[in-house]
């Protein structure tokens, strides 16, 4: 492998791509979200970016591809190839801890951590506004494919929850 020869250019290109925001939850970058899988630069200088969708039908993927290409071209990379992969499937465990903290500050309850065992417990979701655990699910399906709709019984505010998959 040519890790030594390519790691420095790859890191530089990755730094450009990593800050591209998610179009639907712009407080997160595609790196925070775990949508960005890999950035490589080949010996000829072309950048190869690998991304993965959160959901099969995520309509943001076309915008993300355009934004990644634009960011790289703006930084002087003329040749960009973007590949979308489905496997291994994205789960909320790909989201970084920093990403979860940003979501909470933005008013979206972040997904719970990795499930420890085979039994999926229906734990309550903490209200991002008032911290109460006295909340209830209104609908499994929210404003985007990755979110469900909740309401807080303590402060009466509705809120989005980034659901675990």
């Amino acid at each position: 492998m040519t890790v030594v020869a390519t790691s420095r250019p790859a890191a530089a290109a990755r730094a450009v791509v990593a800050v591209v925001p998610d179009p639907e939850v712009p407080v997160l970058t595609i790196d925070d979200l775990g949508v960005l899988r890999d950035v490589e630069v080949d010996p000829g200088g072309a950048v190869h970016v690998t991304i993965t969708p959160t959901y099969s039908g995520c309509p943001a993927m076309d915008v993300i591809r355009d934004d990644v290409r634009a960011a790289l071209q703006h930084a002087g990379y003329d040749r960009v190839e973007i590949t979308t992969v489905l496997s291994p499937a994205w789960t909320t465990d790909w989201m970084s801890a920093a990403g979860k903290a940003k979501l909470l500050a933005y008013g979206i309850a972040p997904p719970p951590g990795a499930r420890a065992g085979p039994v999926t417990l229906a734990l309550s979701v903490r209200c991002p506004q008032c911290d109460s655990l006295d909340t209830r699910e209104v609908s499994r399906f929210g404003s985007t494919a990755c979110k469900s709709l909740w309401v807080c019984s303590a402060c009466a505010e509705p809120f989005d929850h980034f659901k675990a998959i």
Partner: protein
Amino acid sequence: MPVLATYALRLGDDALVLSHRLGEWISAAPAIEEDIALGNIGLDLIGQARALLTYAGEVEGRGRSEDDLAYLRDERDFANVALVEIPNGDFGVTIARQLAFSVYQLGLYERLQGSADATLAGVAGKAVKEVAYHRDHAVQWVLRLGDGTEESHRRMQSGLDTVWPYVDELFDGDEVEQSLAAQGVAVEPAGLRGEWSASVEAVIAEATLDQPTPRWRSRGSRQGIHTESLGLLLAEMQHLHRSHPGASW
């Protein structure tokens, strides 16, 4: 067409046609949350359909894209089951169809994750988690409507009775699935029936509903023999693309 392309098309057409039907509910569902829920389920299905139709086109090797396959085929070339093309009816009919289809699709994708074909395994591995949410959505509504008021019970039962003649066809399969299953690529639908029946019958019983006993069953959809409804659906789905070939925005 190679059998692998036919198989991918069958799975993809099921997802594509059902996603179109679910889209018809947007702005017409009983509550705004349901507009959003059915729209989101349709979106998941269209994502699955895009991956499967793209793959069918690649395997076929005649240069047909996902759009060519979705918008430029005629009714007789569609390989979906009749279950997904029948009209939405009332909310009870749609929920009965969601129950039947999502439980079937969940069992299918759970097995297809282990396919020897890396693309099919990847699509299934991605979709299986989405479909688990679709199944939960349908189950919750069947319980709520079946074990609800007299009127909601009557309409949920009527929904099951309307949909059930189309259920058997999900499990038919033919030499396409058989030959691919022998290579570890496809899942034979007949093998999904036992688990499907146990799961669905438990929900129906808990919802205080009766298991329907249809006196006829649909056949032949996978070979392109469809109900009248599919032609009308395709006319709406395809007309923009066919009226303005190559248009984009």
